[in-house]
């Protein structure tokens, strides 16, 4: 597991084991080695055989020319990301089934009338999907075009700077769930319920992070930039339509946690076709998925609308 060892003294983001520099601001993590007090000359000797060691290209490390053993040096570590803990399932299999029926019946009139009764559940599988949750403080500089203050062109340039804080923002690292599915179900998760071990479901698929730490940080920072740009458009830029929004984000206190989050994945069959649903494993009201439309009902409505319009035309023409 990756753990924070200390806080960067410059931007106050935690440094993790194996970081030689802060990934946000580039500050060097403190070294253990003391500096030389006076001029010293040393020959570095192999711990095994006592012969002199020298840096060897083949090993990419200092190694002993006689016994070929390699000297360990502190290298930047870039381990695969590991989940820090699991949010337990609080929704059981039966509740998930009920949630599916409820969701299918709540979809509205344009769905087939027999959808709820004829949909056959093919598969119901618990999944722990992975994601990063971050907190950060930031100072965001932005520039954009908007319609506010425009003259002959539809666009006018604007710029500004704003302090922004991020609390418990979730970034998906999942390969199994789409980003749309994640944003639909993640508000139902309670991050405070984290446990060391998976709890609440048997035979679950447990997703792993398949990224290295450096790539993960890159993804989180890209996500922060996207969110910052969205927030700037929502509340900073004057006007109602925007384009070419650019942001420059100076981050402080970026704390990233790695979570495994629960979800029920359902597959149901309706008239020979498979449809997929995802239910939040902690709150059955957060549901997303695909469902068939009733072609007949849609055609019926379209035909009646056209018929009504023709009738109105006829009436207008007659008068």
């Amino acid at each position: 597991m990756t753990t924070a060892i200390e806080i960067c003294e410059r931007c106050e983001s935690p440094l993790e084991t194996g970081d030689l520099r802060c990934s946000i601001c580039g500050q060097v993590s403190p070294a253990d080695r003391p500096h030389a007090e006076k001029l010293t000359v040393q020959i570095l000797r192999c711990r095994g055989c006592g012969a002199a060691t020298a840096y060897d290209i083949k090993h990419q490390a200092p190694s002993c020319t006689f016994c070929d053993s390699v000297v360990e040096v502190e290298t930047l570590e870039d381990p695969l990301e590991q989940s820090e803990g699991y949010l337990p399932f609080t929704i059981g299999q039966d509740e998930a089934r009920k949630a599916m029926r409820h969701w299918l019946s709540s979809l509205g009139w344009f769905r087939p009338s027999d959808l709820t009764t004829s949909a056959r559940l093919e598969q119901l599988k618990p999944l722990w999907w992975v994601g990063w949750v971050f907190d950060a403080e930031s100072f965001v500089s932005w520039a954009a075009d908007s319609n506010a203050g425009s003259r002959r062109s539809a666009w006018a340039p604007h710029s500004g700077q704003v302090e922004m804080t991020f609390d418990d923002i979730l970034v998906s690292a999942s390969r199994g769930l789409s980003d749309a599915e994640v944003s639909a179900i993640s508000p139902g998760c309670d991050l405070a319920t984290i446990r060391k071990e998976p709890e609440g479901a048997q035979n679950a698929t447990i997703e792993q992070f398949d990224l290295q730490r450096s790539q993960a940080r890159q993804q989180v920072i890209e996500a922060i930039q996207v969110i910052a740009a969205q927030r700037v458009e929502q509340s900073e830029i004057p006007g109602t339509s925007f384009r070419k929004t650019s942001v420059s984000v100076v981050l402080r206190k970026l704390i990233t946690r790695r979570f495994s989050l629960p979800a029920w994945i359902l597959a149901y069959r309706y008239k020979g076709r498979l449809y997929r649903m995802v239910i939040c494993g902690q709150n059955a009201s957060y549901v997303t998925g695909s469902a068939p439309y009733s072609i007949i009902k849609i055609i019926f409505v379209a035909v009646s609308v056209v018929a009504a319009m023709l009738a109105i035309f006829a009436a207008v023409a007659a008068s």
Partner: protein
Amino acid sequence: MTDAPSEQVADQVEISCQACGSTLLLDSHLRTTVCPYCASPSVIERPPSPNRPAPSFVVGFVVDHDRAAAAVRDWISSASIFARSDFKQAAPEVTRGVYLPAYLYGAVANSSYSARIGEDYTETETYTTTDSKGNTVTRTRTVTKTEYRSLNGEHSTYIVDVVVTASAGVTNDALEAVEPFDLRALRRYEPSFISGWLAEDPSRSKDDCFQLSHDESVAKVEQLLHEFMPGDSHTSLQFQTNLSNEVIDLVLLPVWSFAVRYAEDRPPVQILVNGQTGRVGGKVPISTIKVTIAVLTGLIVVGGFALAIASQN
């Protein structure tokens, strides 16, 4: 250095080999030596001083001597056609792998900028022209025009991974020619890492290096600002950058240094090879004769055309 023997002594230190006890004379800007009597590699450590801080990081050699020499030969033979012929035939000599001292710089850059932002719009305009029958007709067309609006603002960003030379023997341009180094391969400096290789201490003052870092940072900011500007186009970008929260750390970078001596009367050309990526950089000596011939040929061709056109009229 041959004409100032007294300075030579001052620039050297005497150390004794810890393996065989022989006394070695060593240039004071070197961190390593190999004893000529017993071949033991020594690493020298001095108390850090402001202009000579202790190294924080080192990037290890990946490219070995043979690969570096092959890269230089390829680079020389593919040099521009205006390169001197004797240079293209010269063999690279006196190669040495050296850990070059460089500073890794970072800062927070706060800039105030102003620019003219071009916002495009379309207008329908009428114009008169003659149609195929020779009649004058009035038509309309849509043209794109640009309206310029001024924009002032502030921009803040982290600047990281600026690398500048700390060795007086290598200019910053020469180092930039073989950059980038992959900084993901940084290792914490350990004396054992440079053992058996040449390693230099910084020979430029820290103030010089700060200046180089500032210049590179401002160039980076300018690039960022050009990307930051809204609008369909922009002109007259001006900015003032204030760098704060600076960090500067000494890093030893692996470089193969080649000297190419191509003519008796010319100084040898320094060619560097990035010891991590194999990228080659150096200044190719241009043949003035070749350039003159090319320019003359060009003039003759142009003159010939002019004459031909003049004689036709």
